[in-house]
């Protein structure tokens, strides 16, 4: 099939919008708390990112399937029940199958419940659109969260710990930048990242009223 044609189909555009231009972290400014906290090491960033990808895609698709039956005034309750069910399932699965990763992550997995990307995509997209599109929309947004975390963690782990995926890459004599391992240091990095990303994505500044 013609690649150029795929690029103009609705599913592809839905996916790529969340993945790039409407990046969950840099454009929608969602999930910032966990971005700052969890992007200190690559391992944590990848595990957290994958957890978010699973929860966002599955819960978005499910909310979309249920959207005709969800009572409008109880939307939030429904989102919370669905989201927390999947998050706890992920947590239990990790505890049973990958206990070592699970104990390293500690509370990270449970914190997915409070990640605004999950409810953001459900309320902004899944409640109004079909299951396949909602799935792609969730996939794009959550993958954008994953790669943003990995980029930040890449820089933070090297400068803050001198390691990459736990393997030492900088000589012991290099002084670790302790500030960058803390959430405050991540703000500086995130701001620089916003600046570069928004230039690359050619985002227009928001018009002030």
């Amino acid at each position, binding site marked *: 099939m013609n690649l150029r044609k795929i690029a103009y189909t609705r599913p592809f555009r839905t996916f790529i919008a969340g993945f790039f231009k409407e990046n969950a972290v840099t454009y929608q400014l969602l999930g910032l708390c*966990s971005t*700052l*906290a*969890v992007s*200190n090491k690559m391992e*944590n960033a990848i595990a957290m990112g994958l957890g978010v990808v699973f929860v966002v895609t599955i819960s978005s698709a499910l909310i979309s399937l249920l959207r005709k*039956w*969800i*009572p409008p*005034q*109880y939307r939030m*309750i*429904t989102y919370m*029940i*669905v989201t*927390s*069910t999947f998050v*706890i*399932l992920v947590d*239990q*699965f990790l*505890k*049973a*199958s990958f*206990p070592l990763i699970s*104990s390293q992550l*500690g*509370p*990270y997995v449970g*914190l997915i419940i409070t990640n605004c990307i999950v409810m953001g995509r459900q309320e902004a997209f899944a409640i109004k659109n079909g299951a396949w599109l909602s799935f792609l929309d969730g996939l794009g947004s959550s993958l954008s969260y994953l790669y943003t975390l990995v980029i930040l963690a890449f820089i933070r782990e090297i400068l803050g710990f001198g390691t990459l995926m736990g393997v030492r890459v900088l000589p012991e004599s290099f002084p670790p930048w302790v500030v960058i*391992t*803390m*959430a405050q240091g991540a703000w500086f990095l995130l701001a620089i990242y916003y600046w570069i990303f928004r230039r690359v994505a050619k985002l227009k500044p928001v018009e002030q009223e």
Partner: protein
Amino acid sequence: MNLKRKLLDVLFIVVLGTVSVALLLAAQSYSAPAVKRFQETRLKTNILTAAGIPWTPADFRDVFEQRVTEQTKDGAAWFVADSLVIYEFKGRGLWGMIEGIATFDSAINTIISVRVLSQEETPGLGDRIADPEYLVTYRGKTAAAPLDLAMRHKAEAENEVDAISGATLSSQALLKIVSEAAARLRAVVKGGTS
């Protein structure tokens, strides 16, 4: 009409909640045995490591049987291995429970090491209380007196341990748990020899 609509809405939430609870209960019964086995493995391997006894994933249960003895008295239990006394501690951290083991010399006067096995402190901040690099600060500290947190200086006195900047409350919580565990163990083991 309106009442019927409301009842249907409530019914929807009830059904959704029931399905969710059923799913979670099923998941829990599936994971419970694995979680329990992992906790037992984690405790035994950590006790062996804390006592400096070599072990491999294949034989740690046998090594544990041979080298470590569990002692109980007055409802408290502790482990003895190669003249070291190892005690499991558990207590409230800033957000959730902190669990771990503390190793003492045979007279329970000095802390040899502290290992944190599970915690739910703030990711990236308080969770550093579980880092071995941080827990080194407990090595050689006294078990006979309450411990104190060194706030604006490096811990030097034998009853002082370092704090983590940005995670004072978690450091404090762990210190309190370890301190109380040491006191309890001393009271049980030393007090009332009759």
